[in-house]
């Protein structure tokens, strides 16, 4: 993976830059020694690493504004970072870029039960929002599996998903407003602190969510809170074939039932989990569905009955249903342990993240199996079946010559197949550096140029998180000219570089 060329003149100025940034954020909040920078060299995509120029930890919007203005004036690149759990390299440092972390901005600023929103700083952990509003009977619904660690700022940058997207949507369906700072120092509030606040303006709240830190630094987030469902039950449905399990997914949804979560695991994952947890799953079960239903008790009980009837009609081999919170958690244990369990049976795992239309599940599973033979690598499947979001796990051994390259090529071919089947390259992990060079599979040059021009409206000097998302630099000046040559320059106030 080729990253932008390192500007050695910036690297040589490390100490001078550190001194100036210390004036803004305070002596101890600029980390410049190698020992202090080392822990930041990677995010959740461990295959890549780079030591950041400096790690800068501001405490407030004003400090971020001054840091960004300094970076723009001195042409220093900036990589934003929350907790560094990105699985696609979104927070991968660059050697000539400061790493701008939000760890110190971790306050819940306001909880407004009347409007069902909370205004929080970007460094607040996802799970702590629900904890802080639990006494009001409210919660923040998006629950990426990293929720105990990942920050809301990072969730906004990646438009994080989780198991409840099928019914409740992604991060972007749960944010009503943002405060962001541009490289030029503009502090912008988009949307506001209630439902509908982003209406009748360009939905920059929506467009900033999932922008992977390439447009602006998020300094405040207003999240939407919803009443916590009273009742939640889960069915564990074991099928004797992957096809039968896939068909059951279609039938549940086709019957008008939208579960809160609908997860799929194949036999390899079931075995790995069972050996870790010391369980003995029925031999005939080749694929497992976990179907979670939530709402009022009457509603949930009625839906549990209906799902059970549907599954029986599809020849389900093994059914377990939770009758208490403890039983529910026990049934979920297998799914939550899946990635860890696979880690115990393989040297290395490469998890990828494409989405396909639900009905194409049997087809993509066949493709993955064929690719496994082609590359001589084992795989296991564990995914959000309800919304067609796949997380194939490719098992490899990085110590073995060529294995890493094979695993990456295997993953890339799966993603290409997803796009060919009408799906997309990433359902929830983001593009980052991982899938950057695959963007051309999904988007035409025109589509990519349009997205890059959008970036140019925010960051024309391309200092914010360069080398991510797009296979080529934006070259804002050229892009702007592409089809407007010979015309009067409108908006003369746009910064041009």
């Amino acid at each position, binding site marked *: 993976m080729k990253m932008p060329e390192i500007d050695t003149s910036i690297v040589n100025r490390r100490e001078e830059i550190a001194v100036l940034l210390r004036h803004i954020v305070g002596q101890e909040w600029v980390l410049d020694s190698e020992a202090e920078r080392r822990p930041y060299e990677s995010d959740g995509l461990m295959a890549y690493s780079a030591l950041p120029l400096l790690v800068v930890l501001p405490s407030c919007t004003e400090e971020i504004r001054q840091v960004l203005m300094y970076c723009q004036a001195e042409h220093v690149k900036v990589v934003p970072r929350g907790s560094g759990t990105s699985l696609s390299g979104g927070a991968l440092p660059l050697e000539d870029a400061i790493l701008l972390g939000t760890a110190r901005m971790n306050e819940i600023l306001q909880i407004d039960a*009347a409007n069902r929103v909370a205004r929080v700083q970007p460094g607040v952990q996802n799970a702590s929002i629900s904890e802080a509003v639990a006494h009001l009977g409210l919660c923040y619904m998006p629950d990426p599996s990293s929720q105990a660690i990942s920050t809301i700022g990072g969730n906004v940058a990646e438009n994080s998903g989780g198991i409840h997207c099928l019914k409740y949507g992604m991060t972007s369906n749960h944010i009503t407003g943002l405060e962001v700072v541009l490289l030029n120092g*503009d502090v912008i509030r988009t949307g506001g602190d209630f439902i*509908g606040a982003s209406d*009748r303006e360009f*939905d920059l709240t929506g467009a900033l969510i999932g922008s992977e830190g390439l447009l602006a630094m998020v300094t405040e987030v207003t999240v939407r809170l919803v009443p916590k469902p009273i009742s939640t039950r889960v069915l564990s449905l074991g099928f004797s074939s992957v096809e039968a399990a896939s068909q059951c997914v279609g039938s549940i949804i086709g019957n008008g039932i*939208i579960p809160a979560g609908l997860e799929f695991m194949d036999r390899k994952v079931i075995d790995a989990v069972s050996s870790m947890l010391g369980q003995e799953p029925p031999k005939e079960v080749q694929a497992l569905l976990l179907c979670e239903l939530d709402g009022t008790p009457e509603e949930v009980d009625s839906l549990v009955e209906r799902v059970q009837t549907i599954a029986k009609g599809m020849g389900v081999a093994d059914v377990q249903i939770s009758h208490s919170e403890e039983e529910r958690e026990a049934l979920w244990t297998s799914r939550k342990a899946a990635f860890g369990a696979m880690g115990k049976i393989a040297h290395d795992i490469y998890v990828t993240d494409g989405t396909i239309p639900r009905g194409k599940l049997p087809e993509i599973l066949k493709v993955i199996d064929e690719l496994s033979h082609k590359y001589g690598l084992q795989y296991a499947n564990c995914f959000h079946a309800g919304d067609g979001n796949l997380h194939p796990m490719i098992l490899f051994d990085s110590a073995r010559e060529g294995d890493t390259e094979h695993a990456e090529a295997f993953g890339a071919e799966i993603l290409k197949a997803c796009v060919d089947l009408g799906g997309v390259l990433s359902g929830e992990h983001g593009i980052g550096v991982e899938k950057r060079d695959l963007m051309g599979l999904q988007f035409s040059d025109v589509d990519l140029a349009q997205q890059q021009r*959008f970036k140019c409206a925010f960051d024309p000097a391309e200092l914010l998180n360069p080398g991510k998302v797009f296979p080529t630099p934006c070259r804002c000046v050229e892009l702007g000219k592409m089809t407007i040559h010979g*015309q009067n320059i409108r908006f003369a106030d746009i910064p041009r570089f």
Partner: protein
Amino acid sequence: MNIPRQEPSPHVVRPETIDELVDAVHTARGNGSSYELVSGGTKRGLGTPSAGTAVLDLSGFSGIEFYEPEELVIKVRAGTRMSEIQAALSEKGQHLAFEPPDYGPVFGHDRLADTIGGVVACNLAGPRRVIAGSAKDSVLGLEGVNGRGEVFKCGGRTVKNVTGYDMAKLLTGSFGTLAALTSITLKVLPRPEGELTLIISGADDYSACHLLSKSLQLPVAISGAAHSGGIGCAKGLTSFRLEGVSASLRPRLYQLKEHLKFGYATHVIEGSESQAHWRDIRDLSAFSADQKSCLWRMLAPVGDAAKLACSIGGEALYDWGGNEVFVRASYEDVLSQAQRLRDRAVRAGGVADLFRAAKALRLDVGAFQPKSEALASLSARIKAMFDPAGLLNPGRLGISG
């Protein structure tokens, strides 16, 4: 009363293919003209009037491209009538969860003339927004032609998609100022099995807003929370809708009444009666008959909604649990109230938009209340990136171009 001068009918361009649409954009660039984008034409009165010198009629892009009920997805051409889409979905027991309003009648047009392109361009939402979001929460993908005459696509057909910037969100609600949409892919959902509505009589606007807000904090899945009041903030009608599995409706109603604890008279309506009640709220039927009056639309925190609405004095309709409120006002009142009302709205963290008014008044007062210099300047830069020559709906949304 200012009577606007009769304006000459503008030149109308009606492309039927994407190539013709691209040609239309290039033609405008060549001859210095610009377009007002229309399809059903029912929302031309909504927002700042377009300064386009000609009309770009997109109703030629009509029809359902595919509809896969089991996949919960439909792809339609942008000029497709809402009535056609809703009929197709209804046949399979599905619907658009964001409950798009039909603003035809409130703007003096026929019912059922609106198209999906207009609904998406304006990011509309009905009472169910409190639980199901607005158009942008259901749009999965878009195709169109930008102001550079480039054919593009964004998003896709799956709910989970974080590939590249979410341009579909940006374009939804951009009032046709960035691109002319040709196709729209939407998420659809099963229609609720049953519904019922609790109606409370006698709450004033302040008490009603309190009840609306409180109801939405309860775990009973309220899918509509509205109040008709205003005019001195005296007694009005407050409505709460419950939808879903039929067996769950009565227990939820019981729980709702238990928790709200009020002393007002109530009654419950169900089925088609409940549907008609919410259709009237959704479409602003109370304001359709009297076309002469103006309508303010305010978006604000619920705690400020009643105060803002009552300062205007006219009949008011609160929706979205009190975060949206429409208030009737006369032409003269709008002129005298606008500045003070908008100052108040800003202080509350909201906005006061002139939702319906004569064109001259909308131009004079500005339909949309500006929010901040920095936001306006960034918006102008974005507009310039999509439509550098300002060909598409110049002036709409109040953004220069």
